[in-house]
């Protein structure tokens, strides 16, 4: 199952759970100076239907 996260700054990512966790952690660190845990990201990552 794919997951998706949309940041308040408009940045968006979609991918497997591991891909999304890695991308959100990198975006939070690089763009906003925020360190986020896997659990925090799981809480805001929504399931996406694959096509």
């Amino acid at each position, binding site marked *: 199952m794919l997951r998706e996260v949309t940041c*308040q700054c408009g940045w968006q990512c979609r991918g497997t759970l591991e891909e999304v966790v890695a991308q959100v952690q990198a975006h939070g660190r690089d763009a906003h100076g*925020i360190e986020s845990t896997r659990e925090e990201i799981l809480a805001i990552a929504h399931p996406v239907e694959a096509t």
Partner: protein
Amino acid sequence: MTGGGKLPPPVSDTPWSARFVMQSLEVLPVFLQDGRVCWLQPEHAGSLRLGWPTSAQPSQVVTEALAAYGIVPRLVHSTSWRHEGQQVVLTYVAVLPGEQAPHGPGAPLVPRQLGRVELARGDATTPPARIDVDQVLEHALRHLSWLAKDDPVVAEELRDWAGVLGAYEPAPFRSL
């Protein structure tokens, strides 16, 4: 939004789905600053996009999303739609009280001054090949200009916009 804070909540809870016919809302927040029209662009996207649950009123989705940024619009109005990729995008213009617009550095929505651009034009039966956000904003302001003269509610809400919106009135008999 820079600093050692916590990860903010997502602006939209509705993920992309191939089964939605019309699943994307675009919000263009506009406001007046020193007598000029400005709009808020997400720091890392061309415009603010939201998922649209099939059971939700779109204007409510728009106002709830803006609330996540601490913004209470004085007017929201659907102004255009366009096909983009595999989705239909319905655009709302949201007029903000100027004092609510974020001005400090690091905000997720960045104020941009709005310039004038030509509208995107298609053929008689086909849409424009490309539509930029600036052109959607130009259309939205022309739409508000018309509404401010035609709709008493809009006219009342946009009383202080009258001078600015006058510049967006169509000029069919412009002298050359």
